């Protein structure tokens, strides 16, 4: 095997438990995920599956109780982020790894002007020419905000949701991070605005050459944005692979069922195929394969926890009976 350069970020066996206890409930468990430089990895899953927790663990911004329950390795650029001190982490945040939060309404401080909040980040960014003000204007321009000078003195509540999300983008990207975690950055936006923001993000990513972990529950967005996809269910990554594989040849029954249940504009069925039941809450996650109580193909074996099987190039799944294997066998 040829030695490929190590990925920019490599998570190994990352778990987050509620508190330091070994047998406390875990929000996410045994996550292995790698993100290469310049690559966009999509993280999809339903509400409560642990996507945000994973993102926050990467940023080391978990609330204190969960921070205590963080275990595993998060190797970023040769360093284990999970073992860094608070001060070292502050140095990494913003400059190396940055994040766009889900809620543009809440992520800007209502008290301070846009300009003020932008400059704070710029001040920490050593490189860049021009006065702080000029650089702030440039930052707003880079996210295509019209008449940026005037906007500098605006307060967040004076802007529309789409604008605010772009400002959040501008703030998160001021220091040209190498890895951006985008946690459902478009969920609260209108579809037409979402479309534009996604295009913008793609553009910026190309320009800055950064890697991106794109968290979403929208398969349409994933299809448009990502190179690789990881599907989460109940705190685990149940399937991971290149975007085309996931969409065209899903291996996990859950991925497959989800994709089927999405109505599309052009082919309305009379009824939608559904998955029975609902995703389990953290406190009631089943033993073995987390999905087996809802799975059409559940068997006795599914009571044992499946490990990740390789089902294709770079394509793994946590299922005892992967779809492709069956198809392949058939």
């Amino acid at each position, binding site marked *: 095997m040829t030695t490929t350069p190590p990925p920019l970020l490599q998570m190994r066996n990352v778990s987050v438990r509620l508190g330091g206890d070994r047998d406390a409930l875990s929000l996410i468990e045994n996550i292995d995920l790698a993100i290469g430089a310049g690559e966009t990895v999509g993280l999809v899953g*339903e*509400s409560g599956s642990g996507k945000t927790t994973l993102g926050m663990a990467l940023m080391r911004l978990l609330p204190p109780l969960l921070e205590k329950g963080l275990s595993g390795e998060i190797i970023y650029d040769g360093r284990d982020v999970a073992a860094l001190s608070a001060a070292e982490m502050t140095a990494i945040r913003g400059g190396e790894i940055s994040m766009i939060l889900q809620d543009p309404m809440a992520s800007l401080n209502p008290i301070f002007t846009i300009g003020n909040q932008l400059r704070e980040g710029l001040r920490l960014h050593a490189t860049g020419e021009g006065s702080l003000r000029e650089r702030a204007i440039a930052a707003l321009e880079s996210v295509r905000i019209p008449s940026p000078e005037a906007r500098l003195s605006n307060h967040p509540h004076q802007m*529309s*949701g*789409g*604008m605010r999300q772009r400002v959040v983008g501008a703030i998160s990207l001021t220091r040209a991070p190498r890895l951006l975690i985008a946690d459902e950055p478009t969920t609260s936006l*209108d*579809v*037409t*605005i*979402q*479309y*534009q923001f996604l*295009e913008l993000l793609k553009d910026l990513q190309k320009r800055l050459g950064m890697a991106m972990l794109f968290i979403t*529950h*929208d*398969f*349409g*967005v*994933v*299809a*448009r944005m990502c190179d690789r996809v990881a599907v989460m269910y109940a705190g685990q990554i149940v399937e991971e692979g290149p*975007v*085309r594989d996931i*969409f065209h040849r899903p291996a996990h029954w859950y991925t497959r*069922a*989800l*994709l089927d*249940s*999405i*109505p*599309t*504009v*052009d082919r*309305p*069925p009379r*009824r*939608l*195929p*559904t*998955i*029975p039941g*609902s*995703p389990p*809450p953290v406190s009631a996650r089943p033993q073995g394969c987390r999905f087996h109580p*809802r799975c059409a193909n559940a068997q006795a074996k599914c009571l044992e926890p499946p490990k990740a099987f390789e089902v294709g190039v770079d394509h793994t799944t946590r299922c005892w009976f992967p779809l492709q294997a069956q198809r392949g066998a058939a």
Partner: protein
Amino acid sequence: MSGAILSARGLSRVFKVKHNGRQQDLHAVSEVDIDLLPGRTLGVVGESGCGKTTLNRLLLLLDTPTAGEVQFQGEASATLPPQARREFRRAVQPVFQNPFSSLDPRMRVGRIIAEPLSTIPELTRQQIEDRIGEVLEAVGLRREDARRFPNEFSGGQRQRIAIARAIASRPRVLMLDEPVSSQDISIRAQILNILKDLQEEYGLGCVFISHDLATVRFMADDVIVMYLGRIIERGSAEAICTTPSHPYTRALLAAALPPDPDAPPPDLPPQGEIPSPLDPPSGCPYHTRCPLRFDRCDSVRPTMFAAPHGGGAACHLLDPELRREH
């Protein structure tokens, strides 16, 4: 139109809001005409702030229009006698978007479902109990669930309870304001199926509000598209989702990303921001974002013209006069 259960005629709602210290008019809904026929589903699509919820509230008589009127079985709602009003309350029931705020956390599910029945005097206690059980089963829950509190249910289950409540009084019309937007994908499909079954089973008329064309396509027979409080296109669901006439509808369609990595990029991608309803553009409300706009769009507001797909669209490009000129 005769036979419509619920209609709107020139329905408008203007909110007085304080903005920058000044009292300003916010036209949330303007001159909306619709007719809802028994057993048919009318889809309403549009982006945030275009007035869908306001329209819904007006149709539910939760809000009073500043102009125009809502008609129930051909009678103006403002002058409905008490008896007919009660009849209206029974016949028209809503399901809202947020299943968490739709259920009073301090009431048992049974009481929640019984609430619309409480205004029907002739029902006995036993009948109410039976009805609660019936509707719970109709939405895929168990009779015993009536004794539990809402917080014991997941979001999807709550939405089912909300639906059970809505159908308890055997309504003829369901007003569905984004009933699945806050649901997970796997739950969304379940709820949509339930609604569809109910539609067929009871012959319910529905108003289905959503910002997602795909779900509207799945649920509705007819669709209206709203932009800044106005209807800008109307037609059958299929027509709107496959051969839309209005540039805005096309932009909406383009922005609805299909779950397919190989889908080609759209030819007319959406651009621009939605203008503030406080300061709507002159002429065609969409002209600030329209890639096809020409001079006339800035100053003249287009009326509804017949569209090739059989419905109508408020776009100057469809003006027969204009066509003749060319």
